[in-house]
């Protein structure tokens, strides 16, 4: 089904459950080309799961995930691997290969997927490392990096093959204020300079509002609101308000589902 609109990814009626717990209960998301789209929600709502569904690592029970108008869940493995070359994903933990240096980690996708000579790979790796400010760390091992540094190396690796889209899983968590500022800058400038499409999954409301062009808020398996950051700030929806202003009380539950507190306490008697 070819798409004529400017959405790179179109998610329709997505249902996904793990065992008995429903994680997504029919969500629709559009990710416009060339923009930064943020997907927000409290932890445990399934933000990481959503990225894995977009990357085809998990298969939904129902619904479609179109990338360039092609449905990812129904792709054959070979086709899926071709499509993944156009995506970069930044994992929450970095997911660097621990048995090789920072340099080799970034060179890894180039060596796996291209026939480029080593000299050229070297130049490209140094370029990517320079972009994330870690050219001097090229000979370190992943175990010698701090969490924030590992994330930046992983970012350099995610852009190694010049993808069309980057998926960021909680890029801001665990960054100190300085590298946080630099990272926000970097994501924005990379998105614009390389004409990327970015998807940021996060619960850091301020950074995300500052950087995103479009925001989706997910709670309890549903999209509870979407729009531009301005619209989010001005919204009178209780769901959005609660999330944007970080209130514990409201429609988004802070508590994991449980029986009533009073019953639980009395049971011990």
């Amino acid at each position, binding site marked *: 089904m070819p798409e004529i609109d400017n959405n790179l990814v179109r998610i329709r009626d997505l249902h996904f459950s793990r065992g008995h717990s429903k994680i997504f209960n029919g969500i629709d998301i559009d990710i416009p080309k060339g923009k930064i789209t943020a997907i927000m929600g409290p932890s445990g709502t399934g933000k990481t799961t959503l990225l*894995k569904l977009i*990357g085809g*690592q998990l298969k939904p029970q129902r619904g479609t995930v179109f990338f360039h108008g092609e449905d990812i869940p129904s792709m054959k*493995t070979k086709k899926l*691997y*071709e499509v*993944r*070359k156009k*995506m*970069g*994903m930044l*994992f*929450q*933990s970095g*997911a*660097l*290969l*621990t048995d090789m240096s920072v340099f080799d980690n970034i060179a*890894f*996708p180039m060596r*796996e*997927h291209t026939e480029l000579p080593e000299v050229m790979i070297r130049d490209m790796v140094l370029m990517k490392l320079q972009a994330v400010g870690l050219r001097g760390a090229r000979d370190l091992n992943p175990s010698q990096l701090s969490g924030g540094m590992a994330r930046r190396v*992983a970012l350099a*690796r995610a852009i190694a093959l010049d993808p069309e889209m980057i998926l960021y899983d909680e890029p801001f968590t665990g960054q100190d204020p300085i590298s946080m500022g630099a990272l926000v800058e970097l994501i924005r400038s990379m998105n614009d300079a390389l004409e990327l499409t970015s998807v940021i999954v996060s619960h850091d409301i301020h950074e995300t509002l500052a950087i995103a062009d479009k925001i989706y808020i997910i709670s309890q398996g549903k999209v509870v609101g979407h729009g531009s950051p301005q619209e989010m700030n001005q919204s009178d929806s209780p769901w959005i308000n609660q999330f944007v202003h970080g209130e514990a009380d409201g429609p988004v539950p802070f508590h994991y589902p449980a029986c009533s507190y009073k019953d639980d306490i009395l049971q011990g008697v």
Partner: protein
Amino acid sequence: MFDWFAQLGKNTIEFYARLGKEILLFIQTLLAFGPVLMRPGLITQQLYSIGVRSMLIIIVSGFFVGMVLGLQGYNTLVDFGAEESLGVVVALSLVRELGPVVTALLYAGRAGSALTAEIGLMKATEQLSGLEMMAVNPVERILAPRLFAGIISMPLLAAMFSAVGIFGGYLVGVDLLGVDEGSYWSQMQAKVDYDKDIVNGVIKSFVFGIVTTWIAVYEGYKCIPTSEGVSRATTRTVVYSALVVLGLDFLLTALML
């Protein structure tokens, strides 16, 4: 009563579904040998960490097992005045049984557990997911080279074990207890049959190589990606390998006798 049947049915279906997936993964790994062979670098790296680094424990153990065989064998044979046959006893025990079996057990403890822990930790730290998202198939990049290297390593390690063991038996039997050197070797040459004994042992260690390496690789790949999950998977590798090796040894011995 009805519930009980329903539950039984459900469990049976789930069991076969899981079994089917396991077999499918095994076949996929075997099919990946093709592309892996085009990149020998991946295999030599694993041959080193699986095979070469298991050599020390295999050689030392083989030496002691051989010495024990020399002692025990001599003590029994000397009662019948048959101590000249010590070489045959030592060689046959090693080549047909102890070589393949003890090597496989040691291998499961040394290399198998390390494989499970390595792959399990790669899973827990999202490295396997990361590979998939970089369009690199972990079955091809991680599982296949390790399985291949394990299958090659095991018969070689077993051969080393037997060779060193025969030498250990020689030291004890000939040098220490005074068995005639000529008969130790010549009886061995005359009585150990290539087709029946050596090939028999090689087939066993080849099968053990496939089974133990697969268990190790599979347990790592399927483990629950937490520190507890990895530690349990590592234990399972050693326990399952030991049980399967001993069970298969009986079966193979019976079949090839």
